[in-house]
């Protein structure tokens, strides 16, 4: 009776108590780390050989550019038209800027994402330094990140005039904005510091990261920064370092330099690498080249054409025809039937070799969006690996090449800079001209060099636009109904950035 009582009354009370309290035993579950998250604090920094991983992450950031990046940077020159259906790009091409244009904010954020990525990569490399046991290598990796960062700043400062050079990642809000000259000086100083730390070779000779950053990438950025500052002596000295290294030479096949065969060519100082990894399926690492593409009947059935956003100008095409250019014209301009007719009507009978078919047999067809294609950015369909259809899949993107440096050097000399190497301005220009199948010149002037640059580097990035801005040549940039004035040299600071960082408003783009 007593036991039964105990069971009847005590058992339920006991069980209830145990269950109620047992939950307290589960509180340690709340402190478990999240599933499927790799916290930086858990990285094993004792594996010295992993020091290269964050560096490769910085390269990954550099190579993954938005499709709008090269297009937006490239459309303002008198060598390129914005075609297709992007209103902001067409307006920017006509020098009508709005802070609300979506692509301006986008290229700003794309660049800063990768600048900040370079900062975190440097922090990570530093954490591996002790285990790696190779100070020189750690220093080199960090120097590579700083060079990547400098390239991105160079683009931003040229495009926007006034930007923020980050000092500390957690102090962006109160970092004052830097003028373009200040940014260029910063790049020059940075490159002075990193040059001795970087490998002394052509990028294609690197065994760890083939095609990566070397000392000459840094010299090239320094030369370009000096040039923007109109410090021609500085530009000549930096360019001379590249020339005298003997590491670089012009490709003897201009056409294929921009195709698959040109990957990691001796001429290239900086390129973004993309690949199908020699497989028709599976992973690929690519850039969206479609904005450059033309409508076509490809030699390889199924190869994607493009969106027709980026078109060489008639002015550029006629300039090339006037000069009697052949291989550089063939490489830079693809023709549609309407494009051929239009130039013929305005210029005269075209050389017989000009057709709407490229060497590989791709036939470019008429389209309301554009009449010519920028061939340097278009990969022939036959270079796609069977199974891949994205335009330009497997094509690299050339950023800085030796020909540009030769011409930067030549221009600096024509402006009175001296050089400690024997190459003259004539010799530099003639190297480029000979490769293009043109006769040699003597007594080159600044204007001749600038024309040579247009012929050699037309449709490549913003090179032409900033040559004309630098020389205050509003007449050249005012072309085909578009009027350029010097207050249009820089894009406006994107409205969303101005709203976040008011220091960018102070004396904008004076």
């Amino acid at each position, binding site marked *: 009776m007593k036991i039964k009582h105990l069971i009847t009354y005590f058992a339920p009370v006991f*069980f209830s108590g145990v269950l109620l309290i047992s939950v307290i035993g589960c509180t340690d579950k709340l402190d478990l780390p999240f599933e499927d998250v790799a916290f930086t604090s858990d990285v094993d920094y004792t594996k010295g050989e992993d020091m290269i991983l964050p560096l490769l992450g910085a390269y990954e950031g550099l190579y993954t550019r938005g499709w709008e990046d090269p297009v937006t940077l490239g459309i303002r020159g008198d060598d390129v038209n914005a075609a297709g259906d992007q209103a902001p790009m067409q307006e920017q091409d006509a020098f009508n800027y709005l802070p609300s244009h979506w692509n301006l904010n986008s290229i700003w954020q794309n660049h*800063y994402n990768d600048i900040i990525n370079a900062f975190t990569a440097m922090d990570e490399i530093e954490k591996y330094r002790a285990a790696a046991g190779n100070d020189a290598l750690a220093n080199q990796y960090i120097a590579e990140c700083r060079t990547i960062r400098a390239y991105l700043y160079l683009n931003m400062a040229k495009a926007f005039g006034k930007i923020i050079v980050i000092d500390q*990642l957690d102090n962006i809000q109160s970092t004052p904005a830097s003028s373009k000259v200040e940014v260029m000086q910063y790049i020059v100083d940075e490159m002075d510091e990193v040059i001795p730390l970087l490998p002394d070779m052509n990028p294609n000779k690197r065994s760890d990261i083939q095609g990566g950053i070397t000392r000459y990438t840094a010299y090239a950025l320094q030369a370009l920064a000096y040039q923007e500052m109109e410090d021609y002596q500085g530009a000549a000295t930096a360019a001379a370092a590249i020339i005298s290294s003997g590491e670089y030479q012009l490709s003897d096949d201009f056409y294929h330099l921009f195709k698959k065969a040109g990957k990691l060519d001796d001429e290239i100082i900086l390129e973004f*690498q993309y690949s199908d990894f020699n497989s028709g399926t599976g992973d690929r690492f690519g850039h969206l080249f479609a904005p450059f593409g033309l409508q076509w009947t490809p030699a390889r059935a199924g190869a994607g054409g493009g969106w027709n956003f980026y078109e060489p100008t008639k002015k550029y095409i006629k300039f090339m025809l006037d000069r009697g250019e052949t291989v550089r014209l063939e490489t830079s301009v693809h023709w549609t039937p309407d494009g051929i007719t239009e130039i013929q009507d305005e210029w005269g009978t075209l050389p017989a070799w000009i057709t709407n078919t490229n060497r590989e047999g791709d036939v470019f067809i008429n389209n309301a969006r554009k009449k010519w294609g920028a061939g340097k950015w278009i990969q022939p369909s036959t270079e796609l690996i069977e*199974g891949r259809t994205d335009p330009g899949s497997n094509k690299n993107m050339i950023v800085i090449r030796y020909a540009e440096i030769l011409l930067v050097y030549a221009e600096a000399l024509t402006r009175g800079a001296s050089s400690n190497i024997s190459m003259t301005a004539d010799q530099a220009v003639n190297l480029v001209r000979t490769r293009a199948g043109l006769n040699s010149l003597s007594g080159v002037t600044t204007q001749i060099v600038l024309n040579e640059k247009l012929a050699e580097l037309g449709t490549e990035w913003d090179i032409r636009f900033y040559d004309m801005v630098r020389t205050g040549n509003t007449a050249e940039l005012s072309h085909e109904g578009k009027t350029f004035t010097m207050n249009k040299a820089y894009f406006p600071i994107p409205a969303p950035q101005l709203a976040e960082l008011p220091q960018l408003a102070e004396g904008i783009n004076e």
Partner: protein
Amino acid sequence: MQRYGRSRINPNVPDVNTDWYAQIMKSHATQQNHSLSVLGGNDKTSYSLGMSYFDQEGLLEAKNSYKRMNLRASIDHQANSWLKTGVNFNVSNGTRYIADDAAWFEAYHAVPILPVYDQENYNYLLAQGQTNASNYASAQLLGYRGSQNPFFPLVYRDNRQDIRKVLSGIYAELELIPNKLTFKTNYNLSMMFLKGRNVGLPYYATNQTNRLLSTISSSRTTDVNQFWDNTLNYSDTFGDHNLTAMVGTSYRDEWYDYLGASAEDIPVNENAWYIGQTKSEASKNADDNAERLHGISYFGRVSYNYKNRYIAYATVRVEGTQKYQETWGTFPAFGLGWVVSEEDFFPDVDLINYLKIRGGWGKLGNDKIARQDGANTTNPVFLAIDDTQVDGTKTTSTFGYLGWETVTGTNIGLNAEMFNNRLSIEADYFVRDTEDAAIPVSLKLQAGSVLRNVGIIRNSGFEMVGSWKGKINNDLKYTVGANISTLKNEVRDLYGQTYIDGGQAEFRQRSQVGEPLLSFFGYEVAGVYQNQAEINSDPVAAANGLIPGDFKFIDQQREGEEGHGVIDDDDKVFLGSYIPTLTYGGFVGLSYKNFEFSMNIMGQSGNKILNRKRGEIIWTNDTNFDADLATGLWNGEGTSNKYPSAAGLRKGWNQNFSDYFLEDGAFFRIQNIQLAYNIKGEKLIGPGMPDARIYVTAEKPLTLFKYNGFSPEVPDGIDRQFYPVPAVYTIGISLKF
């Protein structure tokens, strides 16, 4: 035009006018729902068994359906004088074919001058010997950037999901002191197994509209959620004093786990749609992800009343979650009530039968905020170095960090029953402050944002619900009800920041102290420049190269003020909020003999909708758009002061974010109407016959709104919805044996 002939109505366009929605949609689709249940038991045990079958046909002209079978059983048993237990199971097995949502997007934007089929191209492809030739038309052959034809995503895709669910629970209730103290423990387990298989079939229309190789992605998702609740309840009466008290604990374990793989180039016959059947080993790819979060709560509640006249209660919850970096939060609450009608002094009249005045204050924690990393993470990436795939890592530079977002609410209200209990009214005034509100904070210079607890947001308003029951005679009875509520949303504090920008950069939404959360922020349209004289007289128009047919934005600075004569950031203003300030609803019920009729209505006003569909033109400017805009475009002086010209639509100036993109979100909707007839089987036919109910229901048969979209009911006010809202008409019968 050479392709499809010239239109006789407008010789500038081809002789084609495709109504894409009519093409991709069936005019109607059927839906069936059958269920059967059995209830039974004795004084100690009760049970319930049932099954149901659901079969829905999709609205799209594609493989698009949903079939589901449900089985359920539950049993409750009084084991002895102090123990009661029960268990229930619910199992379902369903198969769903999902049509690609991209089809709606494509159909919305597809140009009507494109036909569905292109026989000419098809014949050409066949002559070329093209494999997988498709006879659908691609707008690329008309010079457009994309194929535009929604049949490509519809026809060349087979997306199947097999969904199996098990829901089960078991409980025990122990009576520790009869009628006074009980303990209940309750364990629930739910599992979901989802098998997805999404196959892309090969086709070829043009060199840009094709899929050369078939693709497959196959996935398995497992959700296992466990909940365990324990409560101890005490209730007692001491004379006129009534007391109830409760303490409890609750434990949650929510686990999600996904495994997916993909491949290309699989055979075309369905029985071989497996990753392992790929002819391309290199195309195989696998990925997984998972989340498992635990939570614990302790809670208690005491409530007391005296003679059912004075009421008081107090509660406290202590909540712990693994989801937030600051794990624990404590949330107390209390309330008081006074039933005035119970007072001796209150007159015993039919006018007011019951009146209660009440008030309360309390805090609540919100556990629904997205998990933030709380620390830097290092993630793998790959890249190409010399045509070789190489691995690297990227480390984040910042992270979200969260503690509990707390809503502190105060309310006062009353409940009343009047006119012989025919009218009942419930009214409340409330102020709810969300403290430590989790707000997305944009990263500086970079894209993206992270969540931090950085604000205080106040919601305040008035709510009222009323209903009236009436009887005209014994056969005809009616009920009408109505509810109305107002809401004011206001950012009260941003912890030192003047504003926080949100939304997409092109359609800015800004949170600023004194304004509703995430209000739309941009220019105000004053009108459209009508003629050259207007352009010439406006320095803004000259500076921006505007022409008649472009928008004229309001210059917010007056003459003489700094910034007058230019349109810039300083002219951007708050343009309204997506949060409705007024919502209302209503109900009418009638019964006449065996007939029953009911109708529910609802509506809202005071909110703005961002017509994001019109915004799509910023990125792709050669697509179709809505009829009001298409027919209302400015095309000469005096034609429109609301919409720009066709060329203007494609100009950056007019694509500046302005109230042109915003529309009134007010609507009125009949939510459902039902007419039913009840048959008492025994009376009508004879003994032993079942009771039956036959009914006809219409769901969402009517919505009235001005907004130029498919539905004004848009979550968060940003409308990117490209599918129409179907009205559902149901005919049903239910039998009770």
